[in-house]
């Protein structure tokens, strides 16, 4: 087997078996040339079609994401780059990234009128479909679109709401209801609006408002967190005076000196132990959490508190929500504890999944606040 030697005797025997075969080359040559030429033409046609489709797709993408009017713009979490928008008529305000698009609107549906504003990461002028009661037309917009709408109840497509006691602030997107809109012949995604719609009813002094958020299926984590913070920045009437609108969230990459910065741009935390199996009790601690955001979120029982996430695992972003709590003292010293759970959730479709071994991201206070890592081990 090791020697690569040709067995000539066997070769001669084989040659003797077929040596008399002399096919007539003229018998099939014309057919070979005709069929070969046809296949070559088909091949070049297929190549040309594929190339045309590819170039067409590139052109379409360039229009969608490049220089087109529906271009997605990148926002920042840095509060210093955010702009305040105030509507004196309704006396509400919010803050949003200055790079984003804000579109005030006035709608008239039957005899009821309403005013509001749309904030989006797409430079696009939104129109409603049909009369003043129809939904916003979001057809043809990029899949990473995100939109926040704040408006008086009855302004636009959203139905009348029952008056409730005054809402508590800051608002949280976690409290929003997931609503699936069905319209006409396009169930599930009416007129291009990403589904489900996150609907947050707000009541202030007998007046009902609606905060709607639409997150495209490819919306980035950054944009999702910006939406969360826009919603949290909404103030109505006197609440706008009590809570300074600057406190919309932490500033990544800007912890006060001399505190070290963690891998994700926030103040660094110590994780002890850094790894362990399900059931491990973990202590986190760090300095530099002097921004009001951190202390506002601590001890309230709301928000993310301490959560674990293992993203991009197949189609499932595993999130173990509120696995622990934390506190921040007056000097900005953060301490917290959590226990590694055995289960987590996948949001879409919503289901319970196991906490699998591997590196999990520790989030404190908000969905985008990635503070460090914890490695879940098998034993």
């Amino acid at each position, binding site marked *: 087997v090791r020697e690569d*030697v040709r067995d*000539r005797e*066997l070769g001669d*025997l084989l040659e003797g078996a077929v040596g008399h075969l002399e096919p007539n080359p003229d018998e099939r040559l014309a057919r070979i040339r005709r069929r070969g030429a046809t296949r070559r033409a088909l*091949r070049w046609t297929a190549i040309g079609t594929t190339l045309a489709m590819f170039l067409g797709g590139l052109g379409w993408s360039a229009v969608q994401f490049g220089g087109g009017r529906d271009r997605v713009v990148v926002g920042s979490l840095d509060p210093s780059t955010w702009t305040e928008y105030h509507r004196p008529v309704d006396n509400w305000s919010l803050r949003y990234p200055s790079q984003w698009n804000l579109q005030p609107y006035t709608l008239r549906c039957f005899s009821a009128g309403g005013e509001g504003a749309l904030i989006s990461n797409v430079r696009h002028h939104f129109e409603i479909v049909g009369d003043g009661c129809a939904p916003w037309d979001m057809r043809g917009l990029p899949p990473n679109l995100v939109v926040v709408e704040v408006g008086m109840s009855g302004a636009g497509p959203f139905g009348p709401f029952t008056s409730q006691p005054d809402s508590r602030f800051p608002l949280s997107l976690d409290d929003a209801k997931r609503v699936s809109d069905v319209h006409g012949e396009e169930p599930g995604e009416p007129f291009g609006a990403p589904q489900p719609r996150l609907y947050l009813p707000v009541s202030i002094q007998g007046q009902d408002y609606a905060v709607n958020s639409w997150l495209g299926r490819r919306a980035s984590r950054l944009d999702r967190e910006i939406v969360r913070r826009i919603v949290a920045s909404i103030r109505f009437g006197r609440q706008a005076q009590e809570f300074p609108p600057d406190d919309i969230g932490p500033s990544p990459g800007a912890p006060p000196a001399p505190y070290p910065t963690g891998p994700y741009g926030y103040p660094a935390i110590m994780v002890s132990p850094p790894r362990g199996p399900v059931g491990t009790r973990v202590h986190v601690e760090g300095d530099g959490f002097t921004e009001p955001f951190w202390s506002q979120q601590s001890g309230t029982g709301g928000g993310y508190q301490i959560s674990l996430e293992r993203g991009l695992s197949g189609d499932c972003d595993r999130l173990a929500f509120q696995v622990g709590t934390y506190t921040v003292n007056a000097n900005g010293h953060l301490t917290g504890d959590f226990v590694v759970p055995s289960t987590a959730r996948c949001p879409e479709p919503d289901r319970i999944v196991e906490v699998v071994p591997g590196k999990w991201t520790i989030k404190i206070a908000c969905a985008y606040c990635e503070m460090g890592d914890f490695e879940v081990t098998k034993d």
Partner: protein
Amino acid sequence: VPDGSAFEAFYRQNLTRIVRACALVTLDRTAAEDIAAEAFTRLWARWDLVNGEDHAGGFVFKTAMRLCYREMRRDRRRLAGDLDRADAIDQALARQDILSALAELSLRQRQAVVLRDWAGFETAEVGRLLGMRESTVRVHLARARERLRRELRVEEGSAS
């Protein structure tokens, strides 16, 4: 438009060799001529992409061997060496012991021994043509030779 005269010259020069190789693998002259024609059709369809006769030779041999393999897998009877249904020429071939012995080999063993010992390809080239590792080709080759020698009563050591 590719050079038709160059293709025709190549076709006339290599048709017999391809047909004979396919006949040794399929043990069926009609199937061998059909497969050879299909292999040359595919070569002509890609003639503008192949570089020189070496490339063309490798392409047409490789295509022919793949078509043989597909044809044989499709018609399992030939794997068992069913020569009775062959035409007059095939029957003439079948009278020779070598074809009966070839019919006893597995398809891969048959391809390996035909390409190495009849066509004269190096073992590494046989591996490339059949899409298998060189070590695998050597194993197929050794088993095929051992069986052929036993069936044909050829003495060991006659290799040169």
